[in-house]
């Protein structure tokens, strides 16, 4: 196998703060690598072509579609999934707000929705409901009708802003 046509790629990255080294199939999607190889089943594969957002993860600070990125592209990357964000309490206020407001039903979209919402919240502005809706319009939820999700994100944005001022 020549270097140009190799079908396995060596990658070295951090996932949820832990170093990971792996030899991955060249065609393997990041979401499959996380789910199948690392057992990180929190993010889900749903449409598998970048529309629904159920596979959203954080890569180098950005919310990224796990189904549109190859594992081979992750060499050197810093990757966070819902598992790591939970373990480090990075988004516990957002998670608590989702539970309190029942901003999830079946929960399949939720890990991706939380990563997308955190991307907006982490900018530090106080987004309007319309801005929250716009930012989350890349993440399908078929259960809730979205309003509870918008409520939850809005309450966290207000809570964080209040905290910042105090």
């Amino acid at each position, binding site marked *: 196998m020549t270097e140009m046509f190799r079908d396995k790629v060596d990658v070295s990255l951090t996932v949820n703060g832990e170093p990971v080294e792996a030899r991955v*199939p060249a*065609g393997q999607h990041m979401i499959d690598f996380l*789910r199948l190889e690392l057992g*990180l*089943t*929190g*993010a*889900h*594969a*749903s*449409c*598998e*072509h970048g*529309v*629904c957002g*159920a596979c959203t993860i954080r890569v180098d600070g950005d919310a990224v579609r796990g189904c549109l990125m190859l594992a081979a592209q992750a060499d050197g990357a810093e990757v966070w*999934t*819902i*598992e790591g964000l*939970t373990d480090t309490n990075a988004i516990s206020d957002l*998670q608590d707000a*989702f*539970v*309190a407001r*029942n901003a*999830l*039903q*079946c*929960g*399949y*979209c*939720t*890990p991706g929705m*939380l990563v997308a919402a955190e991307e907006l919240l982490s900018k530090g502005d106080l987004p309007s*409901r*319309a801005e*929250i*809706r*716009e930012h*989350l*319009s890349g*993440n*399908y*939820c*078929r*259960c*809730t*009708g*979205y*309003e*509870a*999700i*918008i409520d939850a994100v809005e309450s966290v944005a207000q809570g964080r802003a209040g905290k910042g001022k105090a």
Partner: protein
Amino acid sequence: MTIPFNNPDRPNSYIGKTVPRPNASKLVQGRGRYVDDIVLPRMLHVAFSRAPVAHAKIGKIDVDEAKAVKGVLRVFTGKDLAEVCTPWVAVLAHLKGLKSPPEHPLAVDRACWVGEPVVAVVATTRAAAEEAASLVMVDYEDLPVVTDTMTALDKDTPVIHPELGDNLAFRRLHEEGDVDAVFETAHKVVSASFRTARHTGVTLEPRSILVDWNPAEGQMTAYHATQAPHMMQTVFAKHLDIPESRVRVICGDVGGSYGIKVHVYPDEVATAAIAKVMGRPIKFIADRLESYTTDIHARDHEIEAKIAVDADGKILAMDVDDWTGIGPYSVYPRTSAIEGNQVVNLCGGPYDFANYRAQTTVVFQNKTPTCQYRAVGHPIAVAITEGLVDMAAAAIGMDPVEIRRRNMYADDAYPVTSPAKMKFEGLSHHASMDKLMEMMDYDALRAGQAEARKKGKYRGIGIASFIELTNPSPFMYGIGGARISAQDGCTVRMDPDGSVVALSGVTEQGQGTEAMLSQVVAEGVGVKPTNVRVITGDTQVTPYGGGTWASRGAGIGGEAALQAAKALRNSILEVAAAMLQADAGKLDIRDGQVVDMDSGEERMPLEELGRIVYFRGDTLPKDLPRELVQTRHFITMEYPFAFTNGVQASYLEVDTDTGVVTLLKHWCIEDCGRVINPQLVDEQIRGGIVQGLGGALYEEIHYDEDGQLLNGSMADYLVPMAAEMPDMQVGHVETPTKESELGAKGAGEAGTAGAPAAVMNAINDALRPLGAQVTEMPFTPERILRALGKIND
């Protein structure tokens, strides 16, 4: 002891309060366990080669190339699986005349829709199985394709199943009163054509199943994303020749169902059959294209309907001619005739009138099979009824709210039987309408609408009253011969430390079943909801039950849980009375403590009672029962269904240049009887509304005339997204059913039932000054511009 529901300060008053969902925390932490998250030792993956054409004879099947793919272990054809799995025929005896041919897990001689599974490939990885499936070569000899519903019965249309004689699957005519005579003499007759589009559920978790067959034990274990584990247990047992006691269906977390996951799918049965043949765990996870071509579709209806009213706006008669195409097979075991049948049952539902005729004609075609999807038939019937009522109001110059008030059953009229022969135990149309008017401030909104129109903005207000069928008895399926349980059961157990476990036959699909059960059991026993562990979705553990469908979880499963909990309470108090030398009737359980009923004085923690019963039973009187496990079942007996009611309103703006509809606000007043958890009910209503809004504005499966599905991806089949959806205000009237102590009726489908009609009426309210009207869903910009005469080609 009966529960004094009217006293919110009663002890253990958890029923009627917002209690957090016990399973929500794990889901926000990514700790849910959906079928695709499960990996078993020696597990294999199956992928399917599916029919690329809508109707063809299956010729030679060449699997050599597929077998050569690294990792492929075995390939199965329809003939292979027919030897180990019996076919099914989806008919019900009470739907007279319904016919459908036998269906196999894989097509045997003929493929009848694009997506029908033909060959199964089993490999060590999903990627290998999918690659190999794409290399299976099948000679398809094209057969004539039937796609159009309205011409399916024409003489020159080919018959899809020649052995059935024609393409008619089912027809039902219901007639009450003298419809023709009334239409001839009525003050005003309004008629219209309606169309509802083909939808599908788009569950974010695709259909998923992992089946393990252990030949040494003779036991099958299926991890299945399903709404009805016991029904599936029965199906696998019957068609794969296994005793029911040795089929275990485990339904863990499910990523959305909405009716999609309550049916028997050929590829899922094939997965089970293959597991039995190979003696290894086999996993099938549908990909998104498979979801679009093989998840059931629904709501592909074309309707001609008319209404007759007198000069006072009183409804005199309705006449509905409904047609629907269901694909080539009726879907097992619920059948595909139910949706049309529901249209006949539900049209005119809120209104007190005498003369009613409705016919549904259900035909075969070469498209994906249709079956029950959230709010089965309701969105169609409500759109027909409420569309006609609005048109009649406009024709006689009456306000749409006023015409409804003049026709809705009086709130003190019940029980009544509708002209469709539906029995209503108790509804609240007028109270609901009054509450809606107050909540939305109807008069102010009308003023705002008039103000906006002066500025050239076309805003509309749409009202839709509705009824919803919930808590079904065996009249829905059982009487027709289907082994689908209308009964449900619950086992409630006290463990030694005083904590409680409840095992229920209803399932959790995200709607909040576990929270609902935890608070019902908590109140029934006398402990905190956090001290109740709820277990659902395991046929070898829970009592037999129907699962989640037809908005039955709270009404049926909740009542079984309440009665089991109360039985456990009595058992506990019987032991406590012996231990405390007290009268059991003078004791109560509150917050996990046995207390004096009158004074509330604490007498003994449940933990102490548990210690004695489980470890020092020798100290109790020999004959004292100490059964700290109780099971109760519940089934409705007096009414075939517990109908609910409600009314929705939509406020929106139509851009008459682009045809784009902007939803401004949506309201719903709903009466589901006793509300067990206000937050969960409201969120069911909101989620349901948005699913209905999707049908009204976006969702439509397209086929070409060859039966090719044209928009099988999430990018092409539009569903509601966050940015386009309105905020929704939800309110309730509570008319508990007297069939149960709990008094709960269903709430899961009301939002979907009424939302499309409300939007249609609002759009037409906006367009009325321009003389335009739309009745074909979804109301796309193109259809609106055509109605406005701005597109003519």
